[in-house]
């Protein structure tokens, strides 16, 4: 997908080819999208009937791009008398400045043509095309074209305006132009997208941040966002580059929720430009030490949309935290369950964990009090609806077989949960990390109950339950002859014995018996799981292992960041450092932007990390990864009103200095340095 160029602002994004063109595509979301709807599916520039050819692209910023083009196919000998610059930006709407330059000494005539169409496809219809049930219309106006889609009261519109005089038809605009010697011609095309809501108004016009910002406003806001983050000084260029890139991507991925009028973090471009419970919570945990202000809107939104009834289509139960929220046509008309969909068995415990972690950093006890009812409902869910079989574990099984997720854990592809020999277990399933999260949530719930809810009896109960869960878990999930924890229990209560990265999440949760932590760590950084670039999702000797299998062999940066955190929690600093080093080394090959996942090939085999073919990029929890790795290397841990700093910087990385870390202590600086070195070695 390297040939595609994306720009974004919040959950509005445009994916085009390297010429800046968009052609109808049925397999990848190319075009202009906003709130899960494609508002432009064709956007194609022709000069005298010919396509253009890219000379270069300036895509150094996330919300704007510049394309330098000449007519003709790349095979032609290049002797251009004319060239074209397309300069575009997303700022709620899309604007494109189109400039044609005449390099000859004579006046020249051209026919400039922009093909335009909007199919108003829902993001879920891209891979799985169905006939649209509503009606499309195209209405040419004066230098403008209005494209609309209606299905019952559902109404979306794209309006395209040109500043230069245009001959407009239903399929685009034509500009017959004459340009003087060494002269130029320009038009600005503005593409407005409208989502009609109450009283025929654009839903987004009612939002506090307003749908449309100027590019200058976006740039100022991004700059301010980055200025508020702690400053990193270090010898290791990959680390510095990854940190910079991450801050930029996190700034760009924030979008304004239609439903709540707050800024939330979209999960990943292009498939996941919306709110996910799990992704937003993990990203929040990663970025908390750097930008705690992102957390309250996320928690408040998740609490506001907490499940309140039993709804089989949406896998909803009282107290459950959502999996995915979508705004598009298929969600509205209930062809897809995302209003919201609750098919995640981990987000509910993770919600409690994040709330507690947030308070430990910021001292914002008011939020813990405000969300008390939600946190209690989440904790209750763990022991009631979450424990489907009444066995003291969290289980999942979808009740929405047509559209629900089979696997309701972070590895949610159909074959992700498997036995060592490749067989797939029966439902319901109880994956190991779900039990770890439940354990951690109970302990953190107990802390909040004692300190903020004035309920020591509840706190005692939660602590007792946590201790019992830990004991039970270490008995039922541990595989004595293999010396690791089973990936899951199947519906018979038998262990699903594949060796997976999930055991790293157990370290993070603290559910691993001290005596077993080192053995677990040896597996994580041993040759079966560790590729040299990171920990694979599935060990390379397992039945379903595939180095480019989405959850059965690839390496996920987010997964590795949580594993590193877990290793550090058990004092396994060297192993944690090994993961930090390998991730940062991998990030160099992606210009600092870690993708969603990359292939599980051995580092010696490929010399560089091979990107997973359809990985999302930027992806929020991959962008959050370098931040969490920094926390792990510097050993940052709040304790009471103070921040403990206990650095372990991996060999060869030299000096790492993080200034102005925000928290309940005000702002403090942290400094770490590799131990082994004389003079630091720049990478």
């Amino acid at each position, binding site marked *: 997908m390297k040939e595609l160029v994306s720009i974004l602002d919040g959950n509005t994004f445009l994916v085009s080819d390297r010429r800046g063109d968009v052609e109808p595509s049925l397999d990848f979301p190319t075009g202009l999208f906003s709130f899960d709807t494609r508002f432009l599916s064709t956007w194609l520039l022709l000069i005298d009937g010919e396509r253009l050819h890219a000379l270069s692209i300036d895509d150094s910023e996330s919300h704007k791009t510049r394309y330098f083009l000449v007519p003709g196919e790349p095979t032609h000998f290049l002797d251009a008398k004319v060239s074209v610059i397309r300069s575009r930006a997303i700022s709620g709407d899309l604007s494109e400045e189109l400039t044609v330059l005449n390099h000859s000494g004579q006046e020249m005539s051209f026919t400039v043509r922009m093909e335009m169409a909007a199919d108003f496809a829902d993001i879920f219809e891209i891979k799985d095309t169905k006939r649209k049930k509503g009606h499309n219309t195209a209405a040419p106006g004066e230098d403008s074209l209005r494209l609309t889609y209606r299905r*019952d009261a*559902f109404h979306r519109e794209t309006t395209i305006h040109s500043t230069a005089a245009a001959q407009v038809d239903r399929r685009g605009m034509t500009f017959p132009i004459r340009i003087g010697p060494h002269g130029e011609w320009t038009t600005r095309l503005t593409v407005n997208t409208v989502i009609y809501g109450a009283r025929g108004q654009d839903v987004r016009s009612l939002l506090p941040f307003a749908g449309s910002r100027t590019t200058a406003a976006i740039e100022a806001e991004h700059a301010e966002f980055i200025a508020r983050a702690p400053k990193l000084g270090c010898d290791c260029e990959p680390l510095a580059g990854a940190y910079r890139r991450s801050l930029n991507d996190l700034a760009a991925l924030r979008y304004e929720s239609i*439903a709540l009028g707050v800024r939330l973090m979209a999960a990943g471009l292009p498939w996941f430009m919306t709110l996910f419970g799990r992704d937003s919570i993990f990203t929040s945990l990663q970025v908390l030490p750097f930008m705690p202000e992102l957390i309250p809107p996320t928690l408040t939104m998740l609490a*506001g949309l907490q499940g309140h009834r039993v*709804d089989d289509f949406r896998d909803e139960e009282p107290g459950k935290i959502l999996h995915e929220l979508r*705004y598009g046509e298929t969600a509205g008309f209930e062809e897809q369950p995302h209003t919201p969909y609750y098919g995640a068995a981990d987000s509910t415990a993770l919600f409690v964990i994040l709330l507690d972690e947030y308070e430990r950093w910021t001292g914002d006890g008011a939020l813990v009090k405000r969300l008390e009812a939600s946190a209690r409902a989440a904790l209750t869910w763990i022991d009631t609806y979450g424990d*489907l079989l*009444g066995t003291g574990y969290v289980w999942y099984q979808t*009740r929405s077989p047509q559209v629900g997720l089979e696997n309701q854990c972070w590895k949610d592809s159909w074959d992700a949960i498997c036995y060592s020999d490749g067989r797939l277990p029966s439902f319901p399933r109880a994956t190991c990390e779900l039990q770890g999260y439940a354990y951690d949530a109970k302990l953190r719930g107990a802390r909040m109950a004692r300190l903020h809810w004035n309920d020591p009896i509840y706190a005692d109960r939660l602590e007792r339950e946590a201790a019992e869960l830990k004991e039970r878990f270490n008995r039922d999930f541990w595989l004595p002859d293999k010396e690791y924890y089973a990936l899951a229990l199947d519906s018979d209560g038998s262990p699903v014995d594949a060796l997976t990265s999930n055991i790293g999440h157990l370290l993070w949760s603290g559910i691993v018996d001290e005596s077993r932590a080192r053995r677990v760590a040896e597996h994580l950084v041993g040759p079966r799981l560790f590729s040299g670039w990171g920990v694979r999702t599935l060990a390379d000797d397992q039945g379903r292992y595939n180095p480019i299998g989405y959850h059965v062999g690839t390496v996920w940066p987010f997964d590795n960041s949580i594993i590193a955190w877990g290793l550090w929690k058990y004092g396994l600093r060297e192993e944690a450092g090994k993961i930090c080093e390998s991730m940062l080394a991998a990030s160099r090959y992606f210009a600092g932007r870690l993708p969603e996942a990359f292939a599980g090939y051995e580092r010696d085999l490929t010399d560089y990390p091979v990107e997973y073919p359809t990985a999302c990029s930027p992806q929020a929890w991959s962008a959050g990864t370098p931040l969490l790795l920094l926390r792990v290397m510097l050993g940052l841990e709040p304790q009471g009103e103070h921040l403990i700093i206990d650095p372990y910087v991996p060999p060869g990385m030299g000096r790492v200095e993080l200034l102005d870390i925000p928290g309940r202590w005000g702002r403090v600086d942290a400094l770490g340095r590799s131990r082994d070195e004389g003079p630091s070695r720049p990478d």
Partner: protein
Amino acid sequence: MTEATQQFFATLPARAPEVLRGPAMGTLRIDLTEGHRTEHWLVRMRPGVAEVGQGAEPGDATWYCSVDLFDRLATGRAQAIATTFRNESTFRGDVVLFLAFRRFFPSAPGTRDPREVAREHARWTR
């Protein structure tokens, strides 16, 4: 207004302590339309309390809905958020009130406890 809707509003004050446990506070006006007639309901909410009245004074938020749709919501046969995303009902104002209010809507008729269903099929229970 349908009988189900009338009953639904009548039970809100008694159900509020259980349902309105979050921090939402304010008045939601619900405009129910049938043909050219519109009925205005006012639900004043605060933690643990809901007061129901009728009247056209403005609230902190207004939700526009047909009489028929509201009947389906009040009996668990429709889902509130989806109706706004397809613009079958529309909403303006403080969305927190809408999110809090939707918690009064029941499950669909005939919905079974998922634990019961799972335990019928699973071989391992305690």
